[in-house]
């Protein structure tokens, strides 16, 4: 009795989560410009239309550049912060860490507007670079959170052992610390990349005349005839996300297995 109601709840919840996403491929292959049931027939024409759209590719290229730069920068900053917070004691540590994590809860709208005002005031033109700045600000707290837990699980005596066996602090970092926190670094890169690539508000405010994917998709919805092509784009993106996540999870599990740790849950 209890288990059947829980089962029903679980199924209802999963439908709520995934039905909209399941509709994407359905309409992407549907032979009609109108998004409505009943389905009229099968076509791959929308994928062709999407493929031929030069604007789309330009926006995609911008998004990838931004996401890659953001992921690398936020993760690098995250490594520094995580290392500092897990290994050293310094005055005002709790306050500084709190301030680093604060953008996690600040409204993006306010953050974007503030950055915009400052950029305009000091005369920096809006570009991909300014979007990257904003995204690094948003992603760094996530990177810090993920990497702090990775660094925390590192036994300090491993570093001392490497040092004891003749390695310098730098080579110890390269030979011991880096390989052991690599799963955390990959997670951080992936999360930052994902946050950046579908981020809208910062990209919209700080992009100037440079369009990124999320802003482009939003713009296309003004033209009803473009919707099926957007659906096919969505289908491709969902497919790529699943592939990316699977690869990342594979590396994460392999990393844990190699380090002999216990799997404490990941993305999948």
């Amino acid at each position, binding site marked *: 009795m209890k288990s059947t109601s829980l089962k029903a709840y679980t199924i209802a919840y999963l439908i709520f989560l995934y039905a909209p996403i399941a509709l994407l491929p359905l309409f992407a292959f549907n032979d009609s410009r109108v998004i409505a049931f009943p389905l009229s027939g099968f076509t791959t024409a929308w994928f062709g239309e999407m493929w031929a759209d030069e604007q789309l590719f330009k926006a995609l290229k911008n998004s990838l550049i931004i996401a890659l730069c953001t992921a690398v920068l936020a993760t690098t900053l995250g490594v520094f912060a995580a290392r500092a917070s897990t290994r050293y004691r310094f005055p005002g540590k709790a306050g500084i860490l709190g301030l680093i994590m604060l953008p996690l809860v600040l409204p993006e709208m306010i953050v974007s507007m503030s950055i915009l005002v400052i950029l305009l005031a000091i005369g920096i033109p809006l570009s991909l670079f300014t979007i990257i700045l904003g995204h690094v600000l948003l992603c760094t707290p996530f990177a810090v959170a993920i990497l702090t837990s990775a660094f925390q699980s590192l036994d300090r005596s491993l570093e001392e052992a490497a040092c004891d066996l003749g390695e310098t602090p730098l080579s110890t970092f390269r030979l011991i610390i880096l390989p052991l926190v690599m799963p955390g670094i990959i997670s951080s890169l992936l999360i930052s990349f994902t946050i950046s690539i579908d981020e809208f508000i910062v990209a919209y405010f700080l992009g100037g005349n440079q369009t990124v994917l999320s802003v482009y998709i939003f713009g296309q919805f003004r033209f009803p005839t473009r919707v099926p092509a957007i659906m096919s784009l969505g289908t491709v993106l969902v497919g790529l996300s699943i592939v990316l996540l699977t690869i990342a999870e594979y590396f994460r599990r392999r990393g844990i297995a*190699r380090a002999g740790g216990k799997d404490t849950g990941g993305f999948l």
Partner: protein
Amino acid sequence: MTTPDEKPNMIEFRDVQKYYGDYHALRGINATIRAGEFFSLLGPSGCGKTTLLRTIAGFEDISSGAVLIDGKDMARVPANARPTNMVFQSYAIFPHLSVEENVGFGLRRDPRPKDQRARAVAEALEMVGLQGYGKRAAHALSGGQRQRVALARALILKPKVLLLDEPLSALDKKMREQMQVELIRLQRQVGITFILVTHDQEEALVMSDRIAVMFEGQIAQLADPETLYRRPNSRKVADFIGTMNFLPAKVLSEGPTIEIEAEGLGRISLAPDQVMEATSGEGASIGFRPETLSILFDGQATSDREAMGTVAEVVYYGDMTYYDMKLDGASVPMRLSMRNVPGRPVLDLGARARIGWSPGAAVLFR
């Protein structure tokens, strides 16, 4: 045992002080450790023994004083350049490397060709009884095996001093006893100075040539195991190493021998080397180890001296029985241990018995 008196000094502590903020962790350590010695730092947790070990390795800066290794001041020498290697309490085996990569880690800067380094790794593994384990993943090893890998990894660099930070505390009792014997064998084989940190007094007694007993950042006594056990220089050391019974005593006269009156035992005369200075505030007391007292069963020859007492507690251990005996005229019971031999009864609570003892086994703290 080695004859350490002829050996040169390997480690020298000169008034080593260490503060963590306001906390005074090491309070003026002065000691020397000789080359080739198996030396133990023994004390309860928080006494500074691990901190002292880490000042040798270079993981801990000292606030003042000096640490010398083989005659050289180590003040400006970083951990990676010191002629010491360490076996960590957690073993610190690199989990992402194989056994042979772990053992060979310290040879990364070795100029020898690859095949010679590989041979060195194989020899080190053989020395600790892990031949054939080279390709295994480090995380797949048992506790005892990890410890052997840690030993091989430290010894492969042929350090002047091997530092062992409670290396046996994570092992079960059987394994620990086995590793104690192996460590002694290994130390004799390689002839390197071993410095062991432990809180286990039995372990220190079994393994060491000399032991420094530490309390609250100071060395309370530094001696060989037998001296430490038979002639502890304070009640605190006596209490920490094994069990000791104390009876209140009064000093009557001092001359070539010291005459005292002890509760329940009467007048005793002691040689000067049996007299230790008590910590201030404590009255004089006389101490006996449990095995230096015995119950004299009927028909048994008398000992040096005898006293009468009543059994206040009996604890049966199989091979041994521990009795708490209340001597007539004494305010506190004395614990004594008797080997159980066939035909000898275990006494009941409240039974009266003759206790044999010898003044030579006593230590006076005054």
